[in-house]
């Protein structure tokens, strides 16, 4: 047992070329820079975090609130600057730590805007805090020459590759459902809407294309990290990465996610690959000076990384602890790499009753929410419950009572006929928000 552990430890501490990590740092920083600029130019700082009068906070993070408008803009400006600092590698550890904290703070303000790739950015930036991505080709290595190194322990490279592998493989496993594999859902809904795309658009009116792309997508997710790991298939696999993600960028409204994945998967190329490419492009990279030596990390650091991956491996599986179809109940749906699995729509209204009289109100959420918030909450049970609590608080003063709040819901998942999502007889004002399985959600028929 000890010998086995020892062997792994030696393997994880084998010296490897730092170049892939440096490239990852630079492309990550640049991508985040453009992403932040894009976010601000689109007016989303105001639309997402300033204009709404109510925010759907995450369970356990109710204390997180948006700051005043000027501060929100300041945060995004700082994030933009930090992205550049990460790319050029100046005060790297502080930059990436600050980036992680600020970015994650913004993401935790409102679950309306939850996107898998934002979560990816958060967890990768957390992981990057532990990695020595700044020890070559960076301002830090210029300012502090003692940190310069040509080699890093292999676990640093492997940890990023493992993170990418987790994302892809869990996304692939999540696709192994009857909806995706047997009914080509939701691609059969989304693809025909793209039939006017030049050159290949005509294909999307054909159902077999939706099936082929569903199966191809699942196969891609489940296998691509392994084809990228294997040197012989790596170039072709990366070409597949580019084609796959560019296609998703063209067909679906998924923002920078495709580019994040195209950039991130560069981590699968090792130093030898990059030096070969540089040589082909007639770029003279400085030769590696220091001789390889055994590197070791601080035990605390390694413990942190081990815990991080335990979390990453277990978190996406938690939906198995909940009864019912998690695509319907949303229990365990987020933070699990469930990407592009559902087309869901809903209509929600609330009936608020004064238990001491016949007084009642019927409230439509759009009176308080932005269109995007209203759309997202209309089919997500936990958000419907959260908003019921908001209404209970609001109408408490209106009626001078403890109002009862009932939700009238009608939700459709992946072409199924709409049905109630929330039991209309349950007083949601008395239903606590928790992570235990919900009894107030109507099972999918």
């Amino acid at each position: 047992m000890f010998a086995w552990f020892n062997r792994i430890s030696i393997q994880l501490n084998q010296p490897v070329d730092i170049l892939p990590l440096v490239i990852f740092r630079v492309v990550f920083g640049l991508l985040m820079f453009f992403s932040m600029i894009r976010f601000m130019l689109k007016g989303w700082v105001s639309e997402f975090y300033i204009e709404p009068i109510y925010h759907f906070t995450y369970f356990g993070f109710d204390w997180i609130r948006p700051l005043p408008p000027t501060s929100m803009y300041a945060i995004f400006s700082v994030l933009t600057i930090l992205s550049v600092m990460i790319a050029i590698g100046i005060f790297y550890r502080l930059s990436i730590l600050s980036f992680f904290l600020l970015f994650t703070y913004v993401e935790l303000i409102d679950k309306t805007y939850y996107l898998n790739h934002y979560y990816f950015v958060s967890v990768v930036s957390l992981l990057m805090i532990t990695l020595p991505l700044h020890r070559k080709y960076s301002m830090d290595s210029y300012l502090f020459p003692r940190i310069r190194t040509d080699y890093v322990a292999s676990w640093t490279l492997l940890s990023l590759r493992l993170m990418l592998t987790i994302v892809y493989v869990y996304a692939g496993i999540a696709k192994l459902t009857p909806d995706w594999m047997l009914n080509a859902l939701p691609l059969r809904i989304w693809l025909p809407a793209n039939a006017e795309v030049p050159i290949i658009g005509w294909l999307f009116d054909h159902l077999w294309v939706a099936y082929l792309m569903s199966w191809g997508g699942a196969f891609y997710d489940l296998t691509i990290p392994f084809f990228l790991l294997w040197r012989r298939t790596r170039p072709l696999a990366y070409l597949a990465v580019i084609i796959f993600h560019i296609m998703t960028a063209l067909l679906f409204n998924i923002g920078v996610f495709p580019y994040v994945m195209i950039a991130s998967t560069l981590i699968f190329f090792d130093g030898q690959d990059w030096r070969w490419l540089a040589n082909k492009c007639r770029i003279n990279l400085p030769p590696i000076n220091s001789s390889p030596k055994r590197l070791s990390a601080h035990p605390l650091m390694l413990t942190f990384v081990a815990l991080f991956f335990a979390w990453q491996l277990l978190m996406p599986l938690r939906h198995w602890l909940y009864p019912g179809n998690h695509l319907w109940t949303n229990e365990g749906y987020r933070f699990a790499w469930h990407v592009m699995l559902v087309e869901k729509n809903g209509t929600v209204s609330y009936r608020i009753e004064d238990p001491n009289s016949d007084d009642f109100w019927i409230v439509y959420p759009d009176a308080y929410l932005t269109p995007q918030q209203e759309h997202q909450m209309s089919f997500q049970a936990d958000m419907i419950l959260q908003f019921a609590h908001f209404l209970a608080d609001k109408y408490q003063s209106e009626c001078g009572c403890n109002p009862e709040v009932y939700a009238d819901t009608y939700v459709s998942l992946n072409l199924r006929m709409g049905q109630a999502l929330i039991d209309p007889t349950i007083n949601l004002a008395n239903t606590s928000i928790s992570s235990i399985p919900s009894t107030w959600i109507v099972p999918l028929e």
Partner: protein
Amino acid sequence: MTHSFSRLLAITIVVLGIFLVQVESIQSQTFDREAMLEGMITETILPLHTTFAEQATTLSTTALDFQADPTPETLATLQSAWVETSIAYGHIEVYRFRRVMPFINQLNSIPPNIEFIEIYIDDNVSIDANLAASLGSQLKGLATLEYLIFTDDAISLLTGNEARMAYMSAIATDIKRVADELVVQWTLDAGGYGDRFLSADGEPNSVRSSISMLSNEMIAILEDVTSIGLGVPLGYENRGEVQPARVYAPYSNTTRDRLVANIEGFEMAFNGLDESPSLADYLDFLGAELDGEAMSTVINQNIETTITALDAIEQPVQIAVSEDNETVTIAYNNTLSLLRLVKTDMANQLGITVTFSDNDGD
């Protein structure tokens, strides 16, 4: 081992191929969505706006006639023109796209700001077309005109006050101005909104985005009819106590007609007015079904049921909410059913984008 694997692979490919061929036979035609969108504009949206503009022209003319010869007969003609214009407006209200909202907003802001209108009239401000154009939306438009010409003593108030008459006439003319501008906006190749609609305000994948934009507006009009048109007078935001004064058209007693016109406008947006493929045809093409029946048929049945339920409100809505509450409640429930069908089932079939921010596909 390798031989077995190759055989298994070959069998798998053949089986999957047969499956895909079977699948393909289910859906093998194509649908010209660009033609659908262009047809929507040329055959439905533009004709409806043209009709509205014609009614607005009649309204403006009858207002001037009444101003020149204020008699009960000319007032009745003016009131009749107002009702026709209001119904024509009800038909176009579904097309409240963001970029035409500056025009739509000038047409029917409910309720009018009576206090300010009276101040304007009392101040004896010389009102002309330019001033009318610059007035705030709650000081003009159909709702304001309704207030001025439908009150019981309208004829005496108008004939006894030159400023009131001039105000009435100016805002009637202003309605025509806005209606004419909307026709220009929806005329293709005129650099107006119609061209922008086809390119979905420059959004990528414009066809998909334009269909989403139209669907969102269709949902919005049903939401308004349900929650504001019927829910508010029924008292659903007021402890369940009815609010007769909050109906769409309290002076002309034509609230029901306006609500019906809104549903008819929705129906025309859904089915189209002419030969071009419509949203209903598109749903048929997609094979959209509900409980084994074509979704387009189910939606049309619901539209019909909703209009019948609204038509069943025989008294003016402001009276019916108190005296025939059950009938109004039935109409509300019908519009809510139609709304659910469109906002949930139809949207699920079309994969509508609510806003154009990034998403996870969920």
